[in-house]
């Protein structure tokens, strides 16, 4: 049973339940009410309404699962930073589960804080930026399937969003606009510079990222996550396209803005960069969204290069997928805490002069492999 069938069952059962009462209500009422009731009930039981509600429920389940994973990611982030930097990390809140509840406690604390808007800020932009940022990041998660059966599918045979991978990458690149908007509307010099840096950074790192993904699409012959993972049944794509894998990871680090490339929020020179003026839960949302994007990045790398949910069938597919995503994230963290921050011009130079040619080379390798008939 896949997620679609599961949700369809629930929705169908709910609609039947409601319709039973509904029709009975229609029976006791005069005929002109009864007609209306029957019409509404028929609409509720119609196939288009049922699939719409199913997809809605599916999305909610997927996002909830993803958010729980994000809590794990935040916990891993703090625990691993503790291991590397010589302190414990979260410890007392949720003592028996390794301080796992600390993030929830922090979230509650941030909810209770006052929301401060600078007097001279552009109120609309200031208000919209976090919404776009968080929303676009959640959008990425909606299309990433955890396994063949656990993902946003559009019909009962388990067919997925046709261009899911492309959609995920597109959603990934909405964030710079939100960051630029936040940086501009805060009316602060640090945020302005942070926003500009972010735009420059994302622009130059998006291209190698997409080129690496494009070589995967080329080999798999599809934009669909399930087809891509199926294509890796014999060999995971990171083996033939190792260069692409490394370039992809580097670009992902730049996309999620963690340390070697966290220039938009370089705390040493720009205080908190483009998030400087955001306090309270808005800051909390940004903090959480970094983890969401890290999760999305890890999941993308897993699906595109590391064979997705494939692995010995001792453990369920979903768990395999998550384990791989967690490992990718752990590697990110390991890098983050052990290298210094790079400078913006050096970073752009790295993006355009090193990563872009490597990505093109990788695309060439993929094309050769494809035309040679090995894939």
């Amino acid at each position: 049973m896949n997620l679609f069938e599961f949700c369809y069952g629930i929705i169908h059962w709910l609609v039947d339940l409601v319709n039973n009462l509904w029709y009975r209500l229609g029976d006791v009422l005069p005929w002109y009410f009864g007609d209306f009731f029957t019409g509404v009930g028929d609409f509720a039981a119609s196939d288009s309404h049922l699939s719409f509600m199913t997809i809605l429920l599916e999305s909610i389940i997927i996002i909830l699962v993803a958010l729980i994973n994000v809590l794990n990611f935040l916990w891993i982030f703090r625990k691993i930073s503790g291991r590397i930097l010589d302190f414990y990390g979260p410890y007392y809140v949720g003592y028996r589960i390794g301080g796992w509840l600390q993030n929830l406690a922090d979230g509650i604390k941030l909810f209770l804080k006052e929301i401060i808007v600078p007097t001279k800020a552009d109120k609309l932009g200031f208000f919209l930026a976090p919404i776009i940022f968080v929303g676009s990041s959640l959008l990425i998660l909606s299309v990433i399937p955890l396994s063949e059966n656990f993902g946003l599918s559009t019909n009962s045979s388990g067919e997925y969003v046709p261009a899911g991978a492309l959609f995920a990458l597109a959603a990934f690149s909405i964030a710079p606009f939100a960051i630029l908007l936040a940086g501009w509307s805060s009316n602060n010099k640090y945020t302005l510079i942070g926003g500009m840096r972010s735009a420059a950074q994302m622009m130059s790192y998006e291209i190698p990222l997409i080129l690496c993904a494009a070589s995967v699409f080329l080999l798999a012959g599809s934009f669909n996550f399930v087809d891509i993972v199926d294509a890796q049944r014999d060999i995971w794509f990171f083996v033939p396209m190792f260069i692409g894998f490394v370039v992809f990871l580097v670009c992902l680090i730049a996309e999620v803005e963690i340390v070697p490339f966290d220039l938009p929020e370089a705390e040493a020179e720009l205080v908190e960069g483009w998030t400087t003026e955001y306090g309270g839960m808005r800051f909390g949302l940004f903090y959480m969204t970094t983890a969401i994007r890290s999760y999305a990045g890890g999941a993308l790398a897993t699906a595109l290069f590391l064979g997705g949910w494939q692995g010995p069938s001792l453990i369920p597919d979903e768990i395999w997928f998550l384990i791989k995503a967690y490992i990718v994230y752990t590697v990110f963290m390991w890098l983050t805490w052990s290298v210094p921050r790079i400078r913006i011009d050096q970073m752009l130079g790295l993006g355009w002069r090193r990563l872009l040619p490597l990505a093109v080379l990788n695309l060439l390798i993929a094309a050769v492999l494809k035309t040679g008939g090995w894939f």
Partner: protein
Amino acid sequence: MAEMWINMGPQHPMTHGLWNLRVKVDGETIVDAEPEVGYLHRGIEKICEGLTYPQIIPIADRLCYGSSFTWSHLYCLTAEDLMDVEVPERAEYIRVMAIEMQRIASHLMWLAAYAGDLGLSVGFTNAMRDREVFIDLLQGLAGSRLTYNYPRIGGVAHDLPPNFERDALRTVRYMEQRLKEYEDLFDNSKIFMMRNVGIGILRKEDGIDLGVTGPSLRASGASYDLRKDMPYSVYPEIDFNVATHKDGDCYARYRVRMDEMWECCSIIRQALKKMPKGKWRVVAPRNAPASTGLGRVEDPRGEAVMYVVGDGSDKPYRLKIRSPIFVTLSAAPKILVGYKLADVVVIMGGLDMCLGENDR
């Protein structure tokens, strides 16, 4: 893009204290810079005029929390010069040893802050942890962690605690292992080299003209170290090299401080070996003659000078402090202009700011 002024401070992660660096940027490039200091002025020179000579020692400690021992030692040197007090040799060796420990602790704190500025979190926590080892050692010696109040006019407060020599040698051995690790961590890091080499170049002539001293000047190729050039205490009897570097960039400043830590380890070893038995303190007179005293030492940050005028009473008439970092800061516009905004933290971090002594 239009040029704009950015205030980096007084409350800013880059400042490591309380000061304001105004930089004028054109896009990301710095076209002008202007340091503003004075936010931490506590009137220490004036406070000292109302205190008796021994009471000033803890105040001198408060000049810089990073290297407080150097400052109280400097004050004691100055007062001894004023009162013509002869310090026992054992006390001199204890002081030299403690100063070098303080120098390592101060340089490690600098290294931690520098790594933090660069975003290298692991460097920050490791250097701070190793600094703690030396802080513990000095705590065993003096009784408190940061402001020691250990030297006295005419010696030191008390003799070495039991087993101190063993602990000190162990710590030095540990430190030498750790220094190798730091060199692995920093010098082998490509990004660290990218951020440091060729950044914030201070030419030797400019450094001398602006009065820059200490590691910042030695990194520009000038071999100027008061421990060698104007020896005080028992430094003439100790064999050590002055760490210099010819490039004058941020990497050179980092390198000079690392080399100095190696030298400090060797000096601590020699001081412990050559330390004679005997008295560690002589009683200093209560009142100073109507005369002047001058002390000059090599602080971890440069040349620190203290000048005291006595008027025959038990309080100084005037006490003047020359802070090395105050003078070094005047070189900031010179070494900042032309680099990127992100280089500000590296360049200013490389100077090892300490605002306590700067604003006094």
